[in-house]
Structures are given as C-alpha cells and as structure tokens.
C-alpha cells in the first residue's frame, strides 16, 4: 500500500490524477500486449507487438516518474515509479476500461490497439500544443512512437476486415465487443477538464473521422449503438483488472521493495 498521506494527496490533486490516468492507460495496455509475447501468430508480428508493448511501457514509466517526482515534492515522502505501478489497488487505477479487458484473439487485440492508439495519437498531439514542461516533453517523445503503432494496427484492421470470410466475421465480433468501451476515452473526467477540457471536442471529432475512414477501408460496418461503458477513469473497473494486477504486482506484493 502507498502511505496514507500519499494516497490522500493523489485523491485530491487533479494534476497527479491526470498523470496517473495517462500512465495507467499506457501501462495496462502495455501489459495486455506483452501477454502476447511468445504467442503471436507469426514471429515477425509477435516481435512487432512486444516492441509496441515496450514503447508503451516506456511511456508509462516517464509519466509515473513525473508523477512520483511531483508527489515527492508535495508530500516530502520519497515516492518512486514502482510504488505507483505496483502498490496501488484496483480502485486506485484510472485507466479506461478498454485497456484492461482480455486480449481475445489477434483481431480483437489489433482492433483495441487501433481504437486506443488513435485516441492517444490525437490526445498527445493536443498535449504537445497545450501542455508545458515535462508533460509536453513526454508528449513530444511519445507521439513519434504512437504514430508507428497506429499505422501498424490500422494496417491489420484493414487486412483482417477486408480479408477472408472468417477474419471479417471475427473483426465484426471484436468491433461489437469493443465499441461500447470507446466512449469513455472521449468523455473527459473532472481531472482532465482543466488541461484538455476545451480540446476534447476536437479530439473526439478527429478520432471519429480516423476510425470511420479505416473501418470503411476494412469493409466493416460502422457500429450504430451509442450506449457506452464508463467507470475506469474513476476507479470503477471490470473484474479483469484485479486478475491482471494480481499477476503484474505479484513480485512487489510478495517481496516488498525488491529491486533488480
């Protein structure tokens, strides 16, 4: 567990909540992608996805390091990136639900990466303009990597959507499953308001246009349902996140403070 005064600061400080939200999105998506390591359909794509997972982990680390620095400055209690990643429980994670649901098949995995990566792309593009200091630096750095991720995942969505009958059906099923989880990314929560509240309409429009274009190219019907899941940003998660954390955080729970 984090120290009580640290948890209290996090629950009250919107800037830190925002950083943790961005970091949790990157970490949980990275962890899900890393679960494909050694299981990819072909060697080259196994390596591609693990490389993407590594980029996302690096982005998460930069964000946790920055949040840890701010927490240390504000509380006087030395706080590390590892504590933020490994010592918070389900209710303290602020990632969107779409990041945590299980991988499913390859089609569902690449579609999740496309839907989330496209959102991250337009978000970080805005953050490059409106953020300052270290967050702007992180956005400058991350967007170059995310550009490659989205090209890769969009390419796969088209390949499978416009592929065989089997791959097309699987992509339809994946889209059906994932669609209701997309709305949460585009609706800013209270801690996002100050920084990107005014930009959120633009981000949403840019994301929708990108998704519509790629789905059309992939010959996939654009989903019509507009009822959306939410909760992740506020710490209300699906049952899947608990299992994910149980595995990811095991070492620090069993051997607190263990270092390489």
């Amino acid at each position: 567990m984090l120290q009580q005064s640290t948890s209290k600061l996090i629950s009250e400080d919107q800037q830190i909540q925002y950083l943790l939200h961005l970091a949790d999105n990157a970490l949980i998506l990275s962890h899900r992608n890393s679960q494909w390591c050694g299981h990819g359909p072909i060697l080259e794509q196994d390596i591609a996805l693990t490389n993407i997972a590594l980029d996302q982990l690096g982005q998460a680390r930069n964000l946790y390091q920055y949040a840890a620095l701010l927490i240390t400055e504000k509380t006087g209690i030395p706080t590390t990136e590892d504590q933020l990643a490994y010592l918070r429980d389900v209710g303290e994670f602020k990632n969107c639900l779409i990041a945590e649901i299980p991988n499913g098949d390859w089609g569902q995995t690449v579609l999740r990466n496309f839907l989330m990566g496209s959102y991250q792309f337009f978000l970080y593009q805005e953050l490059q303009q409106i953020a300052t200091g270290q967050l702007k630096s992180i956005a400058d750095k991350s967007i170059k990597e995310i550009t490659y991720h989205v090209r890769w995942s969009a390419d796969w969505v088209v390949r499978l959507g416009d592929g065989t009958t089997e791959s097309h059906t699987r992509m339809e099923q994946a889209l059906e499953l994932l669609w209701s989880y997309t709305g949460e990314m585009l609706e800013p929560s209270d801690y996002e308001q100050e920084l990107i509240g005014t930009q959120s309409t633009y981000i949403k429009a840019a994301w929708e246009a990108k998704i519509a274009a790629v789905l059309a190219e992939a010959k996939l019907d654009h989903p019509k349902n507009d009822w959306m899941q939410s909760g992740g940003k506020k710490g209300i998660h699906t049952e899947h996140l608990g299992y994910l954390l149980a595995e990811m955080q095991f070492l620090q729970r069993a051997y607190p403070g263990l270092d390489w």
Partner: protein
Amino acid sequence: METTKVIDKEKSIWNILETVCDPEIPVLSIIDLGIIRAVAFNEATNMVELTITPTYTGCPAIDMIGAQIRMALAEAGFHQVKIQQILSPAWTTDWMTESGKQKLLAYGIAPPVASNFNQVYLEDLEIACPNCGATNTKLVSEFGSTACKALFQCKDCLEPFDYFKCH
C-alpha cells in the same frame, strides 16, 4: 586560460564518449547515434555534466549506456559524472552521423534514408539491400528485432535484413 582548459577537457570527454558503444548495435558509438546532447565540465566541482536523450522511451539499453559512460570516464580519471536525461527535443535519426550510417550499412543494417519523420511510409521507400545493393526489396514487418528497426527482405538475393527506421 581557464576557458581553454575547460574546452580541452570537454574535447577529451567527447573523445572518450566516442569509445562507448550502443549495446544493441555495437558498431555504433553513442556519438554516432546522436544521443549525447551536451557535455560540460565544471572545473570548480570537477564534475562532468552530460545531457543524454533516449532513442525510444522503453529502450532498455539506456541504463546500460549510462553505466558504460561512467566506467569509460572513470578510467580516464573523471570520477564525478552527472547524467541528465531529457525527452525534448525528441531524438531523431537526423542526428545520426554520416559515419554512423556507413557503419550500420557495413554491419548489415540499412541506414535511415529519409531525412525527416514525416516520411515514414515504409512501403514507399526505396531501401537498398545491405548485402547485394539491389533496391528490389520488400517490407516484411514495420518492427524488426528492436523497435527502432523494420524488417525487409531483398527480392534479388533473398537476404532478410533490418532497416533502421526514420524517427
């Protein structure tokens, strides 16, 4: 006089850094890669101050590079070293030296061909095979053995090879 001494020290530090190699691509020095952004020697405190930027955010080599820098400088008598890591301006392959690109090619990795990040459409690039020189090559995967590389194959000599992506 003092300024000259500091400049000499800094020159010798740059020369030492030239001997530190990228752990993943050992033919490249960290100078070739362009990840050293500034070198300063503080005479009053005897402190070497380096500014370094990672190639990719998740690059596991960066910690090892830091350790190798400290060892190389310590051997030359510089024991106090401060390494500051910066993310912005973000590293770009435009900072890779010409000699670095030649070394990559000789090592069997096609060096980045475009001069800026906007030209990332890998399918549209004409990448020459490092083995036979033919430009009749095809993209196999946008990600190769590491995130910084893509996988290509030569359609003439059939050699599969890594291409160092523009970034």
